[in-house]
């Protein structure tokens, strides 16, 4: 067994998954299914957002019900410049990072003074504020949203034009995000975040100003999620306040929990499962009985409940259970 290849079943699954994602555009080209590339692109963007949520929620114990606000902020950081015919991608990128960071800093500075349900409520309140702020911005379409006619341009760098090029932008950003989180949670900073999740008072008595560490973590997560929004704006070419509604934030939590909160690849597989179910469950219901189509949320909700009740650690948890089982049978 070579060392670079993971020895656990879950590790191998993720390895194969990443390789498949890397070659997916070719597969879809051969099989002539451009629609699937669209679905996958959207899924990976959401996976970036979910991974960023996992950083604060899974590793840091900060359950935010307002994370979609950052998706919206990122998307509008593409949309509003585009409205003024500013298509320079570096400008979009810089704007996204700055605006997301400032918003995360302000919202985090207030909400991180609270815990538990109060934290959930305050993050929700902040995201609703942003939501209604954009609804009221008539100049940029208000409720109806804004069409982006051209994608961000990165002159003398890589192009974002065309679905395959955009897909690789998304895939590369996802890889970077995963790598960032992987390093972060194992570094000194990440250990402090983990300690503050389990026992904040103890961390303070060890000399850590936990508030600042959590705030830093929240900003990193917010900026990462903002990048997902920037990609989403480019991908859909149409943005509206709907992208940052609290329902979207709730879906992000579902994705993290479904995949396995606090595990690196949890949000990625969780998002995959979520997007696939959202896409194919209605068709499956229609196949069973045409009149059932609109009730697809019912089995969807049931699945979620079952997963939360019986699948501790989500899909990742089940995979690692397989691991321990085979390890036992080895003995």
């Amino acid at each position, binding site marked *: 067994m070579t060392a670079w290849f993971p020895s656990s079943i879950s590790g191998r699954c993720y390895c194969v998954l990443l390789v498949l994602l890397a070659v997916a555009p070719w597969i879809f080209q051969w099989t002539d299914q451009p629609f699937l590339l669209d679905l996958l692109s959207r899924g990976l963007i959401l996976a970036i957002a979910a991974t960023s949520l996992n950083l604060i929620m899974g590793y840091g114990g900060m359950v935010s019900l307002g994370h979609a606000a950052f998706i919206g902020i990122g998307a509008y950081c593409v949309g509003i410049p585009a409205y003024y015919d500013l298509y320079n991608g570096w400008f979009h990128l810089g704007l996204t990072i700055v605006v997301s960071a400032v918003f995360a800093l302000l919202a985090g500075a207030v909400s991180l003074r609270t815990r538990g349900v109060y934290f959930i409520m305050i993050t929700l309140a902040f995201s609703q504020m942003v939501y209604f702020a954009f609804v009221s911005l008539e100049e940029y379409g208000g409720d109806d949203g804004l069409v982006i006619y051209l994608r961000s341009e990165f002159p003398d760098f890589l192009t974002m034009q065309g679905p395959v090029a955009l897909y690789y932008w998304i895939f590369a950003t996802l890889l970077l995000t995963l790598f960032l989180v992987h*390093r972060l949670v*194992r*570094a*000194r900073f990440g250990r402090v975040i983990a300690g503050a999740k389990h026992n904040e*008072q103890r961390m303070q008595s*060890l*000399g850590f100003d*936990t508030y600042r560490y959590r705030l830093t973590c929240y900003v990193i997560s917010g900026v990462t999620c903002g990048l997902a929004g920037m990609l989403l704006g480019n991908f859909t070419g149409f943005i509206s306040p709907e992208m940052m509604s609290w329902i979207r934030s709730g879906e992000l939590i579902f994705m993290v929990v479904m995949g396995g909160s606090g595990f690196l690849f949890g949000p990625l597989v969780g998002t995959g499962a979520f997007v696939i179910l959202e896409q194919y469950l209605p068709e499956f219901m229609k196949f069973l009985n045409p009149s059932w189509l609109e009730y697809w949320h019912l089995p969807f909700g049931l699945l979620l409940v079952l997963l939360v009740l019986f699948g501790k650690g989500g899909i990742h948890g089940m995979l690692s259970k397989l691991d321990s089982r085979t390890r036992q049978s080895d003995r």
Partner: protein
Amino acid sequence: MTRPLLRTNGLCKSFGGIVATDHVELDILPGIIHAIIGPNGAGKTTLIAQISGALKPDAGQIEFNGHDITSLSSSRRAQLGLARSFQVTSVFMPMTVLENVMLAVQGADGHSYRFWRPVHKDSEMLEKSMGYLQQVGLADRARHLAAEISHGEQRQLEISMALAMKPRLLLLDEPMAGMGLEESSRMIRFLAKLREQTTILLIEHDMDAVFSLADTLSVLVHGSVIATGTVKNIRANPEVQRAYLGEEHA
């Protein structure tokens, strides 16, 4: 006369109508073990909480090493060299014993805004942490989860974490709580040796432990210090006997 390491000045704290700390004046001299005894509900833990920064006093000052620390947060106080162990074991249960101590070592190292290098590859920190575990005799448990080890071992872990912060003053809130006889006596021997390293403020119910360890004793009754002195003086003090020892020996 040596300057006290810690001094409380007219410290007061009440909860509703109950006075938990009543104008407490306390001088802790460096290099000794100073024990605080008192019947249940005398306000010992409340006092420790104010010294460590977990509770804000209603009135009075706390001076540490010549600085007024009354308004500082507990994390700032910890950085200045005030370490505490908790009455109720407060370690990070889902982490390994080693990871627990590593966090304390990180705390002593100053800021932890280091985002890239994995801690488990930081051999300097690993060595340091193992050293502290060896000191309390937990080195062979390093890879176990804190939740898996015995209660007595968790208490030892708690103390090794406090030591890893290289404290000037160690606040120990009932370190022997819930320990068996053998574990207690091992802990007493260990604390006696610690005297050379750091100053200790000890709160303890176990009278044998207090009498064998303490250089100075303060007796706390109903939130106020009624006497301070050597073990011998305190034992001979009639007021103390009446208020505290008398009750138990009656």
